C-alpha cells in the first residue's frame, strides 16, 4: 500500500452501495472489488468497512444473509434492497452534479471570472 487517500465523509457509503450493486458480496469481497476497480488508488482500513455496513443495514438500504464464499467458506453476503437501489441512484446523481461543479471550479482560469 503506497498511497492513502482520505475518503470524503459519506463517500464510503456510496462506494459500498455501488460495489454491492454489482452483485451480492461479502465484506472482504466488497473491499477487494473497490480496490480492484479503483486500481488500488483507494485505500480503506479494512475493519472500518463493517460499522459502515451495519449502518447501511440499520437504515434498510442493504440486507445480509449467511452463505458460502467462492473458496467454500462461510461468509455473510450483502445485497441491495429496493430502498438501497433508490438511494444509490440519488447519491450517484448528486455525486455527478457535485464533481461536475467542482471540476468546473477547478478548471477555471482568470479569464473565466
Amino acid at each position: 500500500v503506497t498511497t492513502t487517500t482520505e475518503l470524503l465523509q459519506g463517500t464510503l457509503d456510496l462506494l459500498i452501495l455501488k460495489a454491492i450493486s454489482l452483485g451480492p458480496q461479502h465484506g472482504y469481497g466488497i473491499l477487494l472489488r473497490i480496490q480492484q476497480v479503483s486500481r488500488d488508488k483507494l485505500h480503506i482500513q479494512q475493519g472500518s468497512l463493517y460499522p459502515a455496513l451495519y449502518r447501511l443495514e440499520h437504515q434498510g438500504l442493504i440486507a445480509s444473509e449467511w452463505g458460502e464464499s467462492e473458496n467454500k467458506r462461510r461468509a455473510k453476503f450483502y445485497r441491495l434492497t429496493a430502498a438501497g437501489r433508490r438511494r444509490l441512484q440519488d447519491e450517484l446523481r448528486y455525486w455527478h452534479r457535485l464533481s461536475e461543479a467542482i471540476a468546473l471550479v477547478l478548471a477555471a482560469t482568470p479569464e473565466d471570472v
Partner: protein
Amino acid sequence: MRLLARVRSFLSALVLQRRLERDMEQEWEAHLEARAEALAAAGMPRADARRQAGIEFGDPLRWKEQAREARGLGWIQDLRADVQYAFRQMRRAPGFTGVVIATLALGIGANTAIFTVVHAVLLKPLPYEDADLLVRLVENVPAADSTTGARRRGVSMSVAELHELRGRTGAISHAGLASLSFVVISGGEETVRLEGARYSPAIFQMRGVRPLLGRVFDAGDEVPGGDGVIILSHVAWRRYFGGEPAVLGRTLTLEDAFARDAPRRHSVIGVMPQTFEPGGQNQFWIPFPPGVPGAGGDPRGPVVARLADGVSLQSAAAEVGAILSQMRGDEHTDGAVTSSGPPRYELVREKDEIVAPVKPALLVLMVAVGFVLLIACVNVTNLVLARTSARRREFAVRLALGAGRGRVGRQLVTESMTLALLGGLGGTVLAFAGVRLLRALATTLPRMDLGVQLAFPRLDETGIDLAVLAFTSAISLMTGLLCGLAPAIRLSGLDRSDALREGAATADSGVGLFRRSRMRGLLVVAEIGMAMMLLAAGGLLLHSFARLATVDLGYESANVLTFQLALPAEAYPNARLRTFAEDLVSRLRVVPGVRAAAYARQLPLVAIKESGWFRRMPDLPDPPPRQPEGAPDARLVSRDYLSVMGIGVVAGRGFSENDRAGQPRVLLINETLARREFPGQNPVGQQVYAGRDSVPWEIAGVVADVRQFGLDQEPEAQFFADFRQWPAADPVLFTFLGPYYTVRTDVGPMSIIPAVRAGVRELDARAGLYNIATMEQLVANRIARPRMYAVLLGLFAALAAGLALVGVYGVMAYVAAGRTREIGIRMALGAQHADVVRLVLRQSVAITAAGIVLGLAGAVVLTRYLEGMLFGLSPLDPTTLLVVSLAFAAVATLASYVPARRAASVDPLLALRCE
C-alpha cells in the same frame, strides 16, 4: 418502510445483542481468514499472513464500538452503565435506598389501590354491548307535587305505557321495565327463597350478553297468560341446581311474592353467565308481567332504555321528556327545561346511576392518595437532595474529568428513576394487599329487604389489570422524574473547582446553610400542609363514624340472631303461619344458650315502611279513607319481642302472657309517638284507635325509640301490637317476606344455628332457613360504607402524617448537624444544654406552625366536599380540627426533639475541632 427496518434492527439489536456480537465476530474471522489466505497466496509465510491481516483490519474494539452506534445502540450502552452505577450507589447506601423505596412504595401503592377501584367502578364501561347507550329514565319531582319535598326517582311505567312511549319516539331503540322480585321455590327437598328481578325481554336484548345455557326472554314470553319461564343466575344455578346443564327445561313450582295468585309452574329456559351482572344480587329473572289489558292496576316498574344509534343523550332526554309530560298531563312543566330547577324528566347513563352513590367518595379518596404521593415525593426529594450534597465531591470530580453537565444530570435522573421503579414494584405488591383490604371493608350482606345495595357497586370487577399496571408505571416514572429533577437542577449550580477544594464541602454554615436548607424547609412546610389537610379529612370521617357507631340504637344488638324461613306457600296461609311461628318460638326458647325467642313482622333496619292508622279517642272511631300524613309505623310483634331485642320499657309495662286474643287490647307506643300525641300527659291508660277497626286499644306502656330505618335517621313514631290481639279480619299478618325470627342468646349467637335448624326441621322438614344474620351484622352492614371511608381516609391521613413527621425529622437533623460548629461556639461561650435544644426546636416549631396553618387553610377550602359523607358533623367541626392540629404539633415537636438533643449533647471542643 425504512423506519420499520430501523425499528426492527434496533429491537433485534436489543434483544439479540449477544447473538449479534457472535455473528459479528464470525464475520470478521472469515474476513481475516480470507485476507490471510490471499496474502499467503502472494507468498507470505502463513504465520505472518495472519498477523498482517490483523494489522490491516485495525482495532476490533474500536469497530465494535462504532458498530453498536451504527445500530443505534449507543444510548442503551449509556443507560445500562447508568443503571449499573445506580445499583452500585444503592448498595453503598442501603439505609437511604431502603427508606426511599419504602416511602415511594407506600405512596405508589396507595395510588395504585385506589386507582384500581376508580378504574373498575368509574372508568370501565359496563360489560355490555354499547354500554354507553344504556340509560335509565329519572324523574325530578318538584316540591309542589310531592308530600316529601322535591326529590328524584326512577320513572315507573306499565308495559302498556312503555309501549305507547316507544311508539311515539325514535330516540330510543330498546326500552324495558325492571323491578324486584322474590320467589319461593318449593317441591324440592328444601324450600328455597330467591331474590331476583322481573325484566322485560328488551333488557336482555339491549345488553347483548349471551346466556351461558339456553336462551334469554323474547317477545313471546311477555304475553299475558303465557307459560311461566325463568332464567337463573350463574350463582343460583351452581348453588341450588348443582351446576347441572340438565336444569334447562325443568319445571319449578314457585310462588311470586308480588303475584300471590296460585303457585305457578315456571320452566327454566336459561342460565346467565356471571358477567351479566357482576356482583349482582339477582339470582333469577322472570319476565316483567304485562298485566291485563284495560284493568287499572297494571304492574309498574322503572324504565331502562337504550338510545338509538347516533342520538345524543340530551336530545333523547328532551324528546322523551316532552312525550312523558303529555302522556301524564303534568301541570308544572311541559318537559322543556324550565328556568328554575332541573328538567322534570332526565335520562341518566346506567353506569352513572349505578356508581353515583360512591363517586364523590372515590374522587375524595383519589385526591387523598394523590396528596400522599406528593408527600412521599417531597420526602424522597429531600433525601436525594441531602445525598446529592454528600456526593458533591464525586460530581465535581466527574465534571473535572470532562463529563458534561447533561451527562451527569442524566445519571442523577436515572438513579432516581431506578429508585422510583423499584418503589413502583413494591407499590404494586402493596396495592394487591390494599385491594384485598378494600374488598373486605366493602363486603356486605346482599339483602334486598334491608334496602342497602352493595356498599360498593362493581367491586367484583375490581382487579389489578393492564390498565392499572400502566397507570402504576406512569406514576412511578413521573415520580422518578420529579424526585430526580431537583438535585439535577441543584447540580447545575455546582462549580467544579469550588467543590473540588476540600474546604468547600464544609463551608455550610450561617447564611450559606440557611440558603441551602431553605428549599428543604419550604418543602417540609408544604408536606405538613398537605398532611394536615388529610388529617382534617380523616379526622372528620373518623369522628363522624364514631358518632354513627355509638348512636343510641334503641335496642341491644349484641347476642341476637335473626333469620327467616322459606315454606311451601300453599301449605301455610297466614293463620297457619302464625301457629307455626308460635310453635317454633316455644321450641327455640328451650334450646340451651337461648334466653328468649320471638318473631315479628319487621325488624329494625328492614327498609319497608308500614304505617298504621292511629287516632286518639275523642276522634271519630271510623278510620279516614286515607291514612293521614305522618301516620306512625305499625309494628306487629310476638310477646317476647321487646325483651329479645332489648327495647326498654320507659313507662307502664310490656306485653304479658295475658295479652291474648279476647282480653282487653293493649298497645305500646314509642317515646316519639308519646311526645307527639300526648304532650305533657301520661299516655299510659289512654284509649286510642289503631288499625282499621273501631274497637279501642289501651296504651299499656311507652317504649324506647328505635332507629328503624338507619343509624343516621332520627327515630320515627311507632306503635307495637301483639299478634295475638291483632284482628283476625286483617288478612295480611305478615309481609310477603314472612315473619322475622329473633333469638337472644347467652352464647355466641352463630353457635345456635344448628339447633335452630334442627328445631325448624322437626316442625317441617321442607322449611329452608335464609337471611341468617346477627343483629350486630345488620348494624355493621348498615354502616359499612361510612366505615370504609373512615378507615381508608384515616389510613391515608396516618400515612401522610407519618411521612410528614419523617420529613420534619430529616430536615431538622440536617439543619442541626450543619450547625454543629455554631453550636460548639455557643456552648463554649456558655450556652446551656436547654438553650441549644430551644434554639433548634424554635426552628422546627416555626416550620410546623407554618405547615399547620397552611393545612388548616386548605382544609377549610377542601373539607366541604366531605359534607355528604359526614353524620351530625359540620365539615369545619372545630373540635376535630383543633385536636388533629394539636396532636400533629405535639408529635412534630417530639420528632424534632431527637435531633435537637443530639445537637445539644455535642462536645464543644470536638465541634470546634472537627472543622
